[in-house]
C-alpha cells in the first residue's frame, strides 16, 4: 500500500508537470472586443527553433501594429493576433492549429516557422479549407501534396535557394572556379534540398563532389565531420545547416585547422549578430549564404517596416525571420483586401487570387505557381568586415565587391 501511494504520487507529479509545460496562449496585445479580426498562428517560441520563432512573432506583431494604425484590415476592423507556442514540436503544432480553428475561432491563419512544423500545420489548414501563407517552409515536399490553400511567402523553395549563388560560382573564371565540393548536411527538410539543389548545379558545371553526408541534430559529431572534410580537402564546403550546427561546424573546421577556399552555409549566417557573436566577428569574413531580406533594400514599405521594428524592439538588427513573417502577413493582407472577405467559406477565393496575382512585399514582388510555390530568386549574402552584406543580384547589392572566399583570420 505504501509503495502504491508513492507510485501514484510520482505519476501525479509527472502528469502535473507535463500539463503545466503545455503551451500558453498569448493574445499578442490586439484590440479586445468582438469587432477585431482574429488571426491565429502557432510559433516555436521555445525549443530548438525558438530563435527564428521569436523573431517571426515580432514580425507578426509589427504588422499587427502597422495595420491597426492604418485603420484595420477590412471594413475598419482591427487585427488581433492569437499566437500560441508549439514548443518546436510537430504534435503540439497540430493540436495548436486545430485549437485556433475550432476553439479560438480565428478568422484567418498565418503560418509557422520551419518546414518541419509547416508540414503538419499546413495539412490542418488544408483540411479546414483555410488559407495558409507561411513565412518559412521552403522544403519541396510541402508542395508535392496538391494543396490548394498553401503559399510560401519567400522568393523560392529550398531546392532553388542556392541557385543564384551556385550560378555565380560556376560562372567564375576558370582559374578561380572551385574543382571539388563537399556537402555535409543536417537531416532537415529545408537544409537538405538546398544543398542538393546547389550540388546539381555544381555537378553539371563539372565541380566534383568529394563528400556528401547527412547528420542528425541529436548527434551532430561535427569534429568527426570536420576531420573527414579535412582529409578530402574540398575547395568549397556547402553546409546545409540550421543555427547551432552551423556555428558548431565553423568551430569544428577551425579546430581541425581546415579552411576551405569557399564556405557557404544555409540559415545560420543569416541570423546576424547572433551568428557573429557565436563564431567570432573575424571568423565570419567571406562566408556566403542565401537570404530573403535586406534592411537596406528599397522594396516598397521596407523602410517603414524597419523603422517600426526598431521602434518596437530596439536594436540595429532586423532579423530576417521577422521580415519574412511581416511579408507573410502582407501577402495575407493583400489577398483579403483584394477579394474583400475574411469569410471562412470563401477562403478558396483568397487562394485563387494569390495564384493569379503578384504581391508587393518588403522582400520584393512575390508570385506563385498553382501549387503555391514562389517563383522568384533569393538574395545572396556575404559577411564582410563583420557586417552581413547583400552581394547578388547586383541591383539589390549593398556592397560593391564580392570577396573571393572565406578568410577566417579576419579582413585585412
Amino acid at each position: 500500500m505504501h509503495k502504491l501511494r508513492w507510485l501514484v504520487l510520482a505519476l501525479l507529479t509527472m502528469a502535473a508537470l507535463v500539463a503545466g509545460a503545455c503551451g500558453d496562449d498569448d493574445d499578442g496585445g490586439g484590440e479586445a472586443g468582438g469587432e477585431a479580426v482574429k488571426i491565429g498562428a502557432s510559433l516555436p517560441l521555445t525549443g530548438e527553433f525558438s530563435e527564428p520563432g521569436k523573431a517571426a512573432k515580432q514580425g507578426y506583431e509589427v504588422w499587427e501594429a502597422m495595420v491597426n494604425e492604418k485603420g484595420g484590415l477590412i471594413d475598419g476592423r482591427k487585427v488581433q493576433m492569437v499566437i500560441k507556442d508549439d514548443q518546436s514540436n510537430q504534435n503540439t503544432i497540430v493540436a495548436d492549429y486545430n485549437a485556433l480553428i475550432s476553439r479560438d475561432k480565428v478568422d484567418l491563419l498565418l503560418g509557422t516557422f520551419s518546414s518541419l512544423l509547416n508540414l503538419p500545420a499546413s495539412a490542418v489548414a488544408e483540411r479546414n479549407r483555410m488559407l495558409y501563407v507561411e513565412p518559412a517552409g521552403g522544403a519541396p515536399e510541402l508542395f508535392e501534396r496538391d494543396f490548394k490553400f498553401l503559399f510560401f511567402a519567400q522568393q523560392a523553395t529550398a531546392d532553388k535557394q542556392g541557385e543564384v549563388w551556385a550560378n555565380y560560382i560556376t560562372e567564375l573564371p576558370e582559374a578561380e572556379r572551385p574543382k571539388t565540393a563537399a556537402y555535409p548536411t543536417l537531416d532537415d527538410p529545408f537544409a537538405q534540398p538546398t544543398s542538393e539543389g546547389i550540388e546539381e548545379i555544381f555537378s553539371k558545371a563539372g565541380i566534383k563532389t568529394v563528400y556528401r553526408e547527412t547528420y542528425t541534430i541529436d548527434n551532430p559529431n561535427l569534429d568527426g565531420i570536420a576531420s573527414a572534410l579535412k582529409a578530402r580537402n574540398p575547395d568549397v564546403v556547402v553546409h546545409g545547416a540550421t543555427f547551432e550546427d552551423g556555428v558548431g561546424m565553423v568551430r569544428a573546421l577551425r579546430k581541425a585547422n581546415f579552411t576551405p577556399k569557399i564556405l557557404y552555409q544555409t540559415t545560420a549566417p543569416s541570423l546576424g549578430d547572433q551568428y557573429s557573436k557565436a563564431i567570432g566577428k573575424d571568423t565570419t569574413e567571406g562566408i556566403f549564404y542565401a537570404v530573403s531580406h535586406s534592411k537596406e533594400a528599397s522594396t516598397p514599405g521596407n523602410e517603414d517596416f524597419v523603422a517600426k521594428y526598431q521602434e518596437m524592439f530596439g536594436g540595429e538588427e532586423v532579423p530576417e525571420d521577422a521580415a519574412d513573417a511581416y511579408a507573410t502577413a502582407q501577402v495575407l493582407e493583400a489577398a483579403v483586401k483584394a477579394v474583400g472577405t475574411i469569410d471562412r467559406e470563401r477562403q478558396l477565393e483568397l487562394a485563387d487570387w494569390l495564384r493569379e496575382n503578384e504581391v508587393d512585399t518588403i522582400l520584393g514582388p512575390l508570385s506563385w505557381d498553382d501549387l503555391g510555390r514562389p517563383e522568384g530568386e533569393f538574395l545572396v549574402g556575404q559577411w564582410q568586415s563583420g557586417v552581413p552584406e547583400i552581394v547578388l543580384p547586383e541591383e539589390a547589392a549593398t556592397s560593391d565587391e564580392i570577396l573571393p572566399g572565406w578568410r577566417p583570420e579576419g579582413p585585412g
Partner: protein
Amino acid sequence: MTEFLQALILGLLIGGVYALLASGLTLIFGVMNVINIAHGAFLILAAFVTWSLWRAIGLDPLLAILLLTPAMFAFGWLLYNATIRPIRKAPPAASVLLTFGVALFLEGIMGVIWGNTSHSVRPSYANDSFNIGELFLPKAQVYGGLVAIVVLASLYLVLTRSWLGRAIRASAVNPQGAELVGVNVASVAALTFAIGVASAGAGGAIASVLYPFLPGSHYQWIARLLGIIVLGGMGSLPGAVIGALCLGVAELMTVTYIGPEWATGVPYAFVFIVLLLRPQGILGTRLRQDVATA
C-alpha cells in the same frame, strides 16, 4: 591512416568526457540500485550554471568545476534526503518514476530561469586545437578528458582507499552485512548519491563547452549514458569508463567510415550485440546483493 588515427583520438577524447558523465550514474546504481533518470537533468543544470557564471563574470568553465562540484554535492545530498530516502525500500521501478519526475521538474525550472533556447559556453580556447603533425586535438576536448581523468581517479581512490569508499563498496555488495559491521547504509547512500550528482556537476561544466544545450537536452544525454553503463556493466566504475571509451570511438568511427547519420544508431547496435553475448555488460558481474535481496 591519418584519418583512422584522427577518428580514434577524437573518439577517445569524447569517450573520456562520456566516462566522466556516466561515472555518477553507475555509482548511484551500483550502491543504491537506483536508476537515476534525473542524471541528465543534473548535468544540464550544471551546464546552465556554468553558462551563467561565464556570462556574468567570465568565469572559465574549468574553474567553474571547483565551485560546481561542492554545490552539486550539497544539492544532491538535500535532494536525496527529500525525495529518494523515503522510497529507499521500494522496488527499483519506483526510483525510475521518481527520478523521471525530478528530471521533468528540473527541466521546467530550467526553462523558467534560462528559457527554452539553445545555449553554449565558448571560452577563448573553444575553437583551438593542439596539433601533432597532421593530427589535431581540440583543446576543449583535451581539457575535458583531463578533468575526466582527475575526477575518475579521485573517485577510484575514494572508493578503494578510504573508509567511506569501503563503506560504499560494502553497502553495494551486501547492505545487510554492512549494517551488521556498523556501516550506516542510509547515510552512505546519501553520500554516494551526492557524489554522483557532484560528478554530474563537473561533467556538466565540460559538456557546456562541447555541446549546445537546452533544458530538454537531458533526454538525449540520459539515453546515451544509460547505454554506456549498460555496456560497461551496470554499477561498475571501470566498466563505465570502458563502455564510454567504446561508445566514443564507435561514434567517431561510424561518422568517419559509415556516415554521420548512423552515429546514433550504430553505437547502440554495438551495445545490443555486446549484451547478446554478455548480458551483464563488459565488466558487470552478478552482485551478491542480487541474491541477498531476492
